[in-house]
């Protein structure tokens, strides 16, 4: 579902933001600490209410029913990593499915699909899960209601980039799912469709990820670390050692030392 904001503001944290997130896309929101990423996510997901500022398709988010808010919009935050109700994975997932009020056949189908997607072991004690598996379980819980949008607030922060990419690719494989990620680590942004940089509550950059990541001075000014290959490419380009940004390490070495 396409999300649009019109002059979205909140206190002094978010200042008049106009932006569009396309359907079925991965959107990456980044910025230094306290730039307003989490507040922006809360506004977009309806956790903080605003009127006539956030639109899902043509519908104002303010007019969503509580059922629509909970089933169509998924939200995963890192702080929930230890907030599970039940002892094992199966009970946790069944509890969510029971609350959805769907038929048994559909319930079983959704459970099977989500278990396959994240390779979850239903009988495992949640306390014994690694952080990665806990994050996957949180995602599974949100995805059981088949949301059209999912917001991920800094959930990959203590996971290796390689693993985070694998999880993100699993999410990407789901049809009709718009993904919005907030993080101050740009390493993952390379697989996003769109990169948005916030600075003191304002958007200073809104472009496709590959183009945005080459704007090194702007990103550094926003207090962000560039991904290694982009940082290296842009600096080598500055010294006329490379013609363009190169994301593949092997190819870059080949180009430098033919």
């Amino acid at each position, binding site marked *: 579902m396409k999300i649009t904001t019109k002059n979205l503001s909140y206190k002094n944290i978010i200042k008049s933001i106009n932006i569009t997130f396309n359907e079925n896309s991965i959107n990456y929101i980044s910025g*230094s*600490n*306290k730039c307003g990423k*989490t507040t922006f996510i809360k506004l977009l997901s309806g956790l903080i209410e605003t009127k006539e500022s956030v639109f899902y398709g043509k519908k104002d988010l303010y007019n969503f029913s509580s059922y629509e808010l909970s089933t169509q919009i998924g939200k995963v935050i*890192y*702080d*929930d*990593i*230890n*907030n599970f109700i039940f002892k094992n994975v199966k009970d946790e997932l069944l509890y969510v499915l029971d609350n959805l009020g769907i038929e048994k056949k559909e319930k079983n189908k959704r459970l099977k699909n989500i278990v396959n997607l994240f390779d979850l072991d239903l009988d495992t004690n949640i306390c014994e899960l*690694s*952080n990665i598996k806990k994050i996957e379980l949180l995602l599974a819980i949100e995805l059981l209601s088949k949301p059209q949008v999912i917001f991920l607030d*800094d959930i990959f*922060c*203590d*996971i*290796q*980039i*390689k693993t985070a990419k694998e999880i993100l690719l699993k999410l990407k494989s789901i049809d009709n799912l718009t993904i919005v990620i907030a993080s*101050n*680590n740009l390493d993952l942004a390379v697989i996003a469709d769109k990169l948005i940089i916030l600075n003191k509550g304002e958007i200073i950059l809104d472009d496709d990820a590959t183009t945005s990541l080459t704007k090194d001075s702007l990103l550094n000014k926003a*207090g*962000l*670390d560039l991904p*290694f*290959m982009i*940082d*290296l490419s842009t*600096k*080598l380009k500055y*010294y006329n*050692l490379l013609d363009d940004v190169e994301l593949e*390490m*092997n190819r*870059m*070495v080949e180009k*430098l*030392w033919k």
Partner: protein
Amino acid sequence: MEVKINGAIIKSNLINGVIGTYENFINDIKKADFDKNNIYINNKRLNKEEKLNLYKKISIVDTSIDSNYYSLSVYNYMKMCILNKNLVIKDYRKKIIDSLRIVDLINYENKTINDLSSSEKKLVLFATALLSNPDIIICNELFCFFDIKIRKKIISLFNQLVDNYHKIIVICSNNSEFIYRYTKNLICYSKNKLLIQGSTDILFEENTLKLINNYIDIPKTILFTNLAREKGVKLNYNKDIRDLIKDIYKKV
């Protein structure tokens, strides 16, 4: 000073790093299972009483604040931690304000935890760890929420704690870039078992970790240097990308 906990050696006067599946390392310290853990200081095995005294000097900076405490003010949260851990602090009110000042959270004592950003919550956890004036500070994924500015500040604070106060700092993280850049002594776990330990630079630069464990990321500056070396270009191992670029510039 050298402290050996179940085989893992952490050293004073430098920043230690722990990488891999290290949950058991943290749990061993958290559970304070005195009888089970083998602890040595400078090769002298500690008895039960000595172990108890050592545990009082260890502080762990955890990954997140339990959301049950979100309604508390920062001051009340830190006071609660003092009471829960039975810490003996002469003027705890002053100590709370001082600890917050160290991590640059001035005038934050009356703010509610819920109103803090992710990075500020993490800084509160760090300030809480400093309350007991610990000799050993273990940070579990401390840097993942921080931007460059705060990260630099914390690292400079660590260096001061190590150089001026001889504290032992242990950074547990799976971000190999941070570990390679900021630590000198590395302890590596695989499947929660101690795999290898030694100088961070040697373990990464001699590709020991890559050879024995594919699950640990190798820092990108090292991967790049290795690729160049395979082509016969003698690049040096550099921790900072700016140094790497200077080296490339000289050798292209």
